[in-house]
């Protein structure tokens, strides 16, 4: 792993956090820690308890070390800790286990214009609430409203802002917002017993230990819980009061509340960096964007990539206690791996038969891991320790020179022929990759999502393992339709091996067309491990397509796709010999 250590421009070890630098810094910028509710200098400490407890120089706002422009901080620093020449540094670490704990981002409610966040000063988010009520916040914990610095007397909380809302593409529950609001109402009741608090909600989810008790205490403290989410917020132009209209679904009445302040209880969203991390570690995500674990119940902290584990929010929305629990589980899993000292690698690697190799180098060009070495006019060789076992090479080699251990041509063709031996016209033939599509089928099973029973799945490690020959053999055996399915394009478990899948399927479509076989009979779909619903949907679609295929079409494909007699090559003629030689 190569890590970029970002330049701080202040020497960590010399800085004693005295703050002299910040006192003389002439620049002000919004303070991110205080949610922009106050300002900081260009040289600053993120927050008083920061670790490491050292100042940092924000080069985007700093005027620079030009003596005409500034450089005051360097002049005043007795420790001479300011280093304008500091630069990013690349650090390399070899590791045996990785715990992914990249956390979350907070939903930005600006797009939900009906609530007027950014239009009305006194509509704030729950994160801004945290800073305003905190003794270490910009107002030293005096809870005032931003518009006039006066203490609000009537405060409304709107739940599920950015959660459980399919209209904005966020159908999931953010898990923490109900309890966070309940906590906020208790804080207000404690600090300012005379405030009137209103919570507008669709359901209160207080399922954890001690949660219901908190909810009851909040109600006892006078908080009014109104079941219904307001349609919009308006501002009274004269008084500046916020007018919230809501249908109370418990009483069935339309209510109008005049409030001094509204707190949007914002949901949480997957961290922005998730795609980058997913790419680096070949992780897959749910449709909501959270990382997918190996098994939702039995392997809840393991990533499908061995040696990678999840902790905290990045796997699914959860609160602090659950994050701590999961971190413990992840470190325990990682520790077990590290303590073992070695791991067994599944014996699914490719083997090249030097006799049959035509020295074309095609296999080396498709290997995502660079595990095949090849030079012109030389036989290609596999570096076994680097081979991850996708099988892209085996499916690409047209000379039968590559055997994928444990996923050989014979084994897979044996499955094709066995499945289609009887009444093939009634079957939907499916190739599914182990990590995503097959797992998506498992997910459909675990979730008990029904679909037609006509499909027959053959598992390969990667969709790139599915060779032309396997698909053609399925049609020759009378398959009405064939599906090749794999991980989503950017989420391939084998870096980008499924690009080969796309190329191969496109080639097959051309081939089918030329042979007078409708290309629609071969389909390509990406189904992730989390997409049980999609798996079921695709199987239904394939079944619909199967019904449109006529017996004549099936008979035609059987004939038209028969292998043409080529000049006999030793490898082609005796594939069994290859298997034996490499076994």
């Amino acid at each position, binding site marked *: 792993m190569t*890590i970029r250590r970002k330049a701080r421009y202040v020497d960590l070890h010399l800085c004693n956090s005295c703050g002299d630098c910040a006192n003389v810094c002439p620049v002000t910028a919004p303070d991110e820690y205080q949610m922009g509710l106050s300002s900081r200098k260009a040289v600053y400490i993120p927050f008083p*308890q920061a670790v490491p407890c050292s100042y940092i120089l924000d080069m985007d706002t700093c005027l620079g070390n030009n003596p005409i422009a500034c450089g005051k901080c360097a002049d005043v620093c007795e420790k001479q800790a300011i280093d304008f020449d500091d630069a990013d540094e690349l650090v390399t670490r070899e590791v045996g286990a990785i*715990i992914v704990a990249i956390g979350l981002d907070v939903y930005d409610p600006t797009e939900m214009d009906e609530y007027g966040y950014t239009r009305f000063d006194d509509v704030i988010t729950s994160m801004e609430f945290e800073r305003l009520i905190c003794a270490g916040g910009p107002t030293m914990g005096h809870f005032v409203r931003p518009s006039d610095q006066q203490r609000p007397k009537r405060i409304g909380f709107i739940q599920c802002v950015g959660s459980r809302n399919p209209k904005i593409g966020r159908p999931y529950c953010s898990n923490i917002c109900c309890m966070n609001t309940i906590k906020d109402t208790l804080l207000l009741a404690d600090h300012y017993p005379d405030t009137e608090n209103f919570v507008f909600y669709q359901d209160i989810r207080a399922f954890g230990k001690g949660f219901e008790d908190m909810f009851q205490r909040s109600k006892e403290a006078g908080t009014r819980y109104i079941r219904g989410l307001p349609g919009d917020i308006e501002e009274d132009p004269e008084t500046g009061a916020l007018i919230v209209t809501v249908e109370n679904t418990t009483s069935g009445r339309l209510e109008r509340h005049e409030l001094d302040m509204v707190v949007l209880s914002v949901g949480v969203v997957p961290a922005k960096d998730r795609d980058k991390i997913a790419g680096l570690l070949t992780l897959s995500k749910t449709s909501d964007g959270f990382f997918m674990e190996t098994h939702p119940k039995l392997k809840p902290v393991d990533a499908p990539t061995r040696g990678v584990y999840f902790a905290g929010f990045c796997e699914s929305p959860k609160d602090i206690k659950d*994050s*701590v629990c999961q971190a413990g589980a992840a470190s325990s899993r990682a520790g077990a791996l590290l303590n073992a000292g*070695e791991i067994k690698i599944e014996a699914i690697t490719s083997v090249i038969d030097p006799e049959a190799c035509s020295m074309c180098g095609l296999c080396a060009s498709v290997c995502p891991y660079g595990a095949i070495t090849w030079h012109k006019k030389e036989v290609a060789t596999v570096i076994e*320790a680097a081979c991850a076992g996708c099988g892209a090479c085996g499916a690409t080699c047209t000379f039968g020179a590559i055997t994928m251990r444990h996923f050989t041509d014979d*084994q897979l063709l044996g499955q094709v022929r066995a499945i289609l031996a009887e009444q093939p016209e009634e079957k939907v033939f499916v190739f599914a990759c182990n990590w995503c599509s097959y797992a998506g089928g498992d997910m459909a099973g675990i979730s*008990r999502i029904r679909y037609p029973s*006509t499909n027959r799945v053959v598992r390969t490690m990667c969709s790139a393992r599915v060779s032309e020959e396997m698909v053609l053999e399925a049609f020759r055996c009378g398959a009405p339709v064939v599906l090749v399915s794999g991980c989503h394009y950017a989420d391939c478990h084998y870096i980008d091996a499924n690009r080969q899948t796309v190329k191969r399927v496109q080639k097959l479509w051309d081939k089918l067309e030329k042979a007078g076989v409708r290309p629609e009979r071969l389909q390509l779909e990406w189904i992730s491990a989390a997409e049980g619903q999609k798996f079921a949907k695709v199987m239904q679609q394939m079944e619909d397509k199967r019904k449109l295929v006529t017996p004549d079409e099936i008979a035609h494909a059987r004939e038209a796709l028969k292998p043409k007699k080529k000049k006999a090559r030793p490898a082609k003629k005796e594939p069994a010999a290859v298997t034996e030689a490499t076994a």
Partner: protein
Amino acid sequence: MATLDKDSELRIGVFVCDCGLNIAGAVDCGAVCEYAETLDDVVCVVRNKYTCADPGQNEIKHAVREHRLNRVVVASCTPRQHEPTFRQCVLEAGLNPYLMEMANLREHCSWVHPGDWDGATAKAKDLVASAVGRARFLEEQVEMAVPVTRRALVIGGGVAGIEAALELAEQGHQVTLVEKQASIGGIMAQLDKTYPTMDCSI
């Protein structure tokens, strides 16, 4: 471990799991067994209530010895769950673990086709035939052992990352904690009080 004689005949054993009613409730397991008996090279078919449980595994071990099986097909659940279980089982019976193949009658069949007795049973038969078709060509494999670097990387210095890093360090491992911000603490550090205990976040 007994090694395969290349010339020796294929002797495949098929073990069909009821999984209580998880499979047997939607699939005619008896019919699947009868069908399996008709397949070439299958010399022994056993129906289990729970193949993964000790009695089920013992039946596999017993049959491997009794019938001199050199390939095992377990028709039960997804290999993504129990492949390691049954690989270990056949290993203990003296077979190379790679000579075991699974047919997924549960996640891919009974759980998704309840009420479609005939359709699910036909599919289950095909899945068993497919596994047997593959098992005929299975070969012994030797796994490679790779050393693990005894150091961990934790990406993210919020409450989960900090906790995970500390736990690993307590176990005696070297840990590198990577945080993109200037300070660790994450979003939790921005909170005032936290539920349900109403104590400070930092």
